[in-house]
């Protein structure tokens, strides 16, 4: 079960929970499972079948370049952060 | 549109005739009329040195010299620093010391350093830094540029 860190601004959807443990071997499955537990979360994270442009999702320390197809392991950590710019 | 005037000068050892508008700078004439694009425009008002050329033995910013002013004079540009296929020791030293990153200020620095070595064959680091203070480089922090000039100054050929 992957551990997802819920950012403070989204905790109103998780009844205050800072972390959620959900099944899934891809980011899509993880977010689907999150949304089942906390309806509305997927809409805040995704638009159509993509991660929203202003959000980055980090899996095991690295910002995913693979979007919702990113593989997730049972012991993975997932963070949701604002997208950053580099120069 | 102003009328173009004919200008004769010696550029890198060759007699050259060209036409330019009276309002055109030497830099514009070199780049736009003569196709010599080695000198670069970084600021257009003599602050950065990217357009450095040597005019009658003096280092100048070609962006603040009018093309018409070079009538009858001797000009050395970056295109004339190497002798045929043989790089000038400054050019070789810039390569070996990794003294360039983006490379856009490099022609100006090499021309400026050439003018320095022409009059001061064995400069100290202080002399190099004072002489090159009119050339801006944003990539290197100047460390490797100063080293390259000092290295080239050790070459006897540089002083020929």
């Amino acid at each position, binding site marked *: 079960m992957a551990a997802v860190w819920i950012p403070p601004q989204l905790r109103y959807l998780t009844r205050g929970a800072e972390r959620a443990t959900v099944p899934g071997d891809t980011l899509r499955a993880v977010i689907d499972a999150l949304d089942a537990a906390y309806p509305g979360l997927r809409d805040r994270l995704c638009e159509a079948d993509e991660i929203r442009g202003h959000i980055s999702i980090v899996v095991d*320390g690295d910002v995913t370049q693979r979007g919702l197809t990113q593989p997730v392991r049972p012991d993975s950590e997932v963070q949701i*952060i604002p997208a950053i710019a580099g*120069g | 549109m102003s009328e173009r005037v004919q200008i004769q000068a010696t550029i890198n050892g060759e007699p050259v005739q060209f036409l330019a508008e009276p309002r055109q700078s030497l830099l514009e004439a070199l780049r736009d009329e003569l196709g010599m694009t080695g000198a670069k425009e970084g600021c*257009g008002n003599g602050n950065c040195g990217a357009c450095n050329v040597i005019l009658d033995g003096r280092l100048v910013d070609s962006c603040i010299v009018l093309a018409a002013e070079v009538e009858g004079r001797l000009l050395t540009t970056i295109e004339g620093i190497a002798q045929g296929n043989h790089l000038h020791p400054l*050019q070789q030293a810039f390569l070996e010391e990794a003294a360039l990153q983006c490379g856009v200020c*490099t022609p100006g620095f090499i021309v400026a350093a050439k003018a320095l070595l022409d009059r001061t064959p064995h400069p100290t680091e202080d002399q190099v830094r004072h002489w090159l203070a009119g050339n801006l480089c*944003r990539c290197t922090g100047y460390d490797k540029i100063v080293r390259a000039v000092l290295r080239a100054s050790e070459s006897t050929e540089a002083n020929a």
Partner: protein
Amino acid sequence: MVLETEKKQKKYKVIGTRPIRPDGLDKVTGRARFGADIDLPGMLHGAILRSPHAHAHIVRIDTSKAAALPGVKAVVTNADFPHVPAEELSLGEGAVNLVHLRQNVLAEDKVLYHGHAVAAVAATSAHIATEALRLIDVTYELLEPVLDVRDAMKQGSPILHADLRTRDMGKDGDIPSNIASHLHFELGDADHAFGEADVVIEREFTTRMVHQGYIEPHNATVSWDEDDHLTIWMSTQGAFNVRDQMARLLRLPVHNVRVVPMEIGGGFGGKISVYLPPVGAILSHKTGRPVKLVMNRTEVLEATGPTSGSYIKLKMGATKDGRLIAARGELAYEAGAFPGSPVGAGCMTMLGPYDIANATIDGYDVVVNKPRVAAYRAPGAPISAFACESVVDELAEQLGIDPLQFRLQNASKEGTRQLRGTTFPPIGNVAMIKAALASDHYNAPLEGPNRGRGVANGFWFNAGMQSSLNASVNGDGTVSLIEGNTDIGGTRASIAMQLAETLGIPMEAVRPTVVDTDSVGYNAVTGGSRITFASGWAAYECGMDIRRLMCARAAAIWDLGEDDVEYVDGVIRARKDAAKKFTFAELAGRINSTGAPIIGNASVSPQTVGGAFALHIADVEVDPETGKVQVLRYTAFQDPGTAIHPAYVEGQMQGGASQGIGWALNEEYYYNADGTLANASFLDYRMPTTLDLPMIDAVMVETPNPGHPYGVRGVGEVPIVPPLATIANAVYRATGVRFRDLPISPRRVLKETQGLE
């Protein structure tokens, strides 16, 4: 003097050497072709009219007189662009709103900063185009400008964009605001931890907008052909990004747009977004001729770049035994005229050098009537590091602990949890601080009045993103490498070296060429310190592809199974028959007589970037008469993972340090009260010269990145993170005054130390 504290392992033959870069010759002879060096038959020259006001409605634009000037071929305004929807376009890192992009390129109904483009002309010469600008008549209705980030956040402040709402993790606010977004991060319980702290320090900091300061101004030459194919020659950090921006802005299929990346005279993040190409495109479309646009320096400073000015309030707490336990920060960054400041990265990198378990950080992205900011080398991080490293320095002082020792005992390491929730992979922070503690510089006495020594640490994420390349094996054993990344600081060399290493051939046998967007697969920007990391990784994969193909070919020649052939140190040999072997060049010579050409291909999007740290030490002397701060000695330490070409790693470290020193001491956008920029020239926007800097010692402390085939970490950005605080901390020790407002210019030094105005 350059120290390499960790010797390269013997396993590499090419990596760690210092060959002459492949593009060097063209750049020392003046032959290299930069964007402004383009000249095409029939080419017209463009010029852009810019707003003299910081904030105004455009009531009317009359272009008739300009259009009538002999030699003028077209005059355009924003109305000449096709309509674009309000959609976001990814630039690889970060995104841009297409409507904002179009309004920045040419103002629509409002000008939002001094220098905002309003109209453009194409004429038969650049001088005529400039003359024509004076004949364009624009009627403005002036509005009150908002120049300071704190003013812009106040209720009742003039609003720049009536439709802008504060976005909070994807949810928009209800009322118009200049705060484009609010970010909020929490780790642990900061409020509780402050209660347990023995020393708590809270300070406020401000910094001004500063410019990337590349020596080459922006340029673009655009040819819009009759069949709607567009070719753009320009200096850009991201040819593919320009292609995609142009296709979306002009509603063209992507394959109708070809971008030819010319050599680029510096970028530092400022040459990713487009300014000139859309204008060139509509001028070319109207005239049927290629149009060249080149900015002058004033335009570059007024209307491109810069990075944010800022306001930061930061509180940090430590226990009396010297443990950092809590932080509470508020960061407000100026975005300029359109949303998009790097405040997020500022928040997330600020505490990176530390193991600090409790932190709450809020970030605000705020629009003001100044140019729209662009990325600048580790965007956002130097600003927040200035605040953090100043407070950390003060905490160490109050606790009576050596500032480097304090940083060491609180240093982040593998497994340390960061503000954004992630934990660090293996990183070199501790090894680097130890190297600094043991260095000659740190242990050398610094004597004399008005002198002081300062240190500061810095962290940057680095980026991976997408890279593609391919390489053909030639009959003589040389290899032609085709890549798509603009080479700003020696990446042709660092990519070619990794291919040569993989193939076991000399670096000189690989010839890299950077090609246009039609000629190689997609490549993200040259930015994020990613090219040597990601394109180097692609070079490795490409090399492995060639090795497989070479082994298969040898197996076919020898009539063996592919598994019976191996590739060792550039030799292809049969595993069980020592007599059967080819050197790389021998087999290359037989490729075309034994089958198909051998071409290696690779496309990658690696994620395991590793993270980068830099620690700087500066000795300064402050002249009490003039207030000028002179840097006497400077040493930069950094973990490059593996330094592929050490000379160019040193170059990045030295260059980043010098930009940071300029930011600390002299550089600032100086605005008049009416919002006009007062110092838009290199004379008045004072970047460091040879006389302002000493030699900068660069010390590479390698902790290889386990997430890269050759251990590479990005190196380009992190060296600009520590200098602001390094200098401020040194000036404090020289003067007894803590400078919390940048730059520490002579004017400010005299004011703070002697009360002189």
